[in-house]
């Protein structure tokens, strides 16, 4: 399972970078979305894929019994998703406004500041 996830994550990164290299702004944005998802999946996978119980300590016990999922990695992903959501929402608004001002979707046309 881990191998499959690793391949999937690799494909996601590759697709993201490919999309970011395209000239269209919208595809650039799709690339960014893929990239943040790939990073989240990566954290999810490196923390260990456990098919087990939630990490709750039963009454009276001192530690979790049996295999349990790592809660910290999931907390990280949750935070990263929220941040990614906020940043990407901003990027969407930015691209929309940029399109209204520049009137083009082509990154090659945006050389005014170089």
């Amino acid at each position: 399972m881990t191998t499959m996830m690793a391949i999937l994550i690799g494909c996601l990164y590759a697709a993201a970078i490919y999309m970011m290299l395209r000239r269209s702004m919208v595809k650039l944005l799709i690339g960014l979305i893929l990239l943040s998802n790939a990073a989240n999946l990566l954290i999810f996978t490196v923390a260990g894929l456990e098919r087990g119980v939630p990490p709750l300590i039963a009454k009276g016990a001192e530690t979790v019994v049996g295999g349990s999922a790592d809660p910290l990695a999931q907390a990280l992903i949750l935070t990263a998703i929220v941040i990614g959501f906020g940043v990407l929402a901003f990027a969407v608004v930015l691209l929309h406004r940029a399109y209204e001002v520049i009137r083009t979707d082509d990154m090659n046309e945006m050389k005014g500041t170089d």
Partner: protein
Amino acid sequence: MSRQFNMRSLILSTGTTIILPLLLLFSLFLLLRGHNEPGGGFIGGLVAAAAIALKLFADDYPSAKALLRVHPLQLVGIGLALAALSSLPSLLVGDNFFTAQWWTLPLPIFGELKLSTPLIFDIGVFLGVIGTVLTVIFTLVEAEH
């Protein structure tokens, strides 16, 4: 006016008047149960923001804005202030910065009510999320006009 949405329908509009209060109530429910069970400020805020976005689609921009009463950015400000201020009560008691404080209020009929600084923080998150999501949506709507 509502040309840009092309979805003005009597059914949606009427349905919204019924669903909207329920959605808002549900968002509060999610917010308050969040400490021990699935839910919390973030998810509750998203539901509330979705409710107001529904109003926007069903009716129009001014009515959705009127429903909120304040500018969504002000909501973000209040939320952020609440979340930041919830870190301070711990200092009065002498605990470390941001340590959770709990107060138990006895209520005559319902038993006891537990209040805490995490709850204040969560309310802050709730308002902040509503504000942020609606700022984004309103900005895009204004750009359409």
